[in-house]
């Protein structure tokens, strides 16, 4: 099933520039985990977000479109990026989340995506052996 990682690290003005030591380190960390995710066929999509000063919030109330400058809520740590992954289950998703650089500097909120597709999915409820190595 799919999981959306909401990344928060307090960099509400956007990610650090790549030519800063902080930005370069972040880039290296990201590249390593994204390469691993691609190799395992886990990654669906991902992306950093611009700072909240570029955010625009839209609401429709009584037929009126209300557009507001800024994020939907004032939070100390806004969502600064996202990663969408396809995993066999929560344990695998949590293991990937722990490898994302944002987990060290901030937090990764793991949210299961509700599957609205009609067809069957082949997810087996296999039991792993406690001492075996088949499942995580």
């Amino acid at each position, binding site marked *: 099933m799919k999981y959306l990682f909401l990344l928060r690290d307090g960099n509400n003005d956007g990610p650090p520039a790549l030519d800063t030591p902080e930005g370069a380190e972040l880039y290296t960390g990201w590249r390593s985990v994204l390469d691993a995710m691609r190799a395992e066929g886990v990654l669906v999509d991902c992306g950093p977000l611009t700072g909240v000063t570029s955010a625009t919030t839209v609401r429709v109330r009584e037929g009126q479109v209300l557009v507001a400058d800024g994020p939907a809520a004032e939070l100390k740590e806004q969502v600064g990026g996202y990663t969408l992954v396809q995993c066999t289950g929560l*344990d695998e998703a949590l293991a990937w989340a722990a490898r994302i650089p944002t987990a060290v500097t901030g937090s990764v909120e793991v949210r299961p995506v509700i599957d609205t597709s009609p067809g*069957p999915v082949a997810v087996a409820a296999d*039991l792993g052996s406690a001492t075996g190595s088949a499942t995580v």
Partner: protein
Amino acid sequence: MDEGLLGQALHDAWWPALAAAFRVTGDLQFAEDAVQEACAGAVRQWHTAMPADPVAWLATTARRRAIDQVRREAVRPAKESAAARRAQEPSFAQDPAGVDPQEQLAMMFLCAHPAFDVATRTALTLRAVGGLGTHEIAAVLLLPEQTVAKRLVRARRKIRESGMRFAAPHVDALAARLDDVLATLTLLHTEGHRSSTGPGLLRPQLSDRAVAIARTLARLLPAEPEVLAQLALLLLTDARRDARVDDDGCVVLLAEQDRSRYDSAKMAEGERLLERALRLGRPGRWQFQAAIAACHTTASSAADTDWREISALYGELLRYDQNPVHEANRAIAVAEAEGPAAGLTIIDAVLHHPQLARWPTLHVARADLLRRLGRIPDARRAYQRALELEPGPAERRFIDHHLAHT
């Protein structure tokens, strides 16, 4: 057949049956419904003919009910598409009879999953593994019943929606998740020894089940000192089981217990396990707890108990686990080693901890120290306070007895 025996047989079969039903549904509520239905069938049929293997009977029946329910849900429109998918999974068609110990282990790890907060883990384990009702769980966790009900609803929903796999963790992740399992197991065992609801003080089948799970863990992880130490702790505590209540079902304090009634086989096994754990050279909180239990159980008489050693061990234990209950126990040890006034100072310092304030046993301990200090009106007030907190029936009789003689 006898109602009590039937009840106990059903209780013993609850966990394996739930694990079997959960494996096919992936939905705890479905699984619980299936087990309830299977239990109702058992009550009707077991009176006339007890199956050869009641646990396997209940598990097989519950599993079939669960499969039927998933199939029923699967033909309903889009809303239940999860059930439709489940019905088409390759593992669904398999209908093995009987029970699989791996399922039970997987259920234990699911209940103690780090994606649940600690309070939810214990509530869920007591429900899914212990087979306790919401009311009983509330009593053992010292929480309002509604809080427990809400937690269970949220937990079932999270299991259903978040893709938590029903599998024991890989051996690398196992050790990290072990402490959660050990903590919840100990709570199960404690509930067996200090039953808050029901007629007696002891509910041995619950304690026996905790020991059985601990044995399984120790078999799977023979090099984990904390696993061995926890099994040792449970056995050393169990060794005193028969001496903890008198013939009228009243609590017998440690100091007044007949030590000839201690189970020497369990004591010996517990000590052996603890030694093995200590030799592995990685100290931890379960090893200190087991060492404390060993001090109590192996003292040849109450007067010979090394209270100084015990209060020191509690001090060490608190470095690994800052549980206020340990602090309360340290207070009792200090009272024995240095006198009731020193113990009372420690108890009074933890008395207003939000969790401990509702714990009747703490107020009983405090009343006892006050009585020994000759502060009779204060002691009576403390006993009254313990009664207000709805202690279990055996503890209530104990308090009533002391109120009458203080």
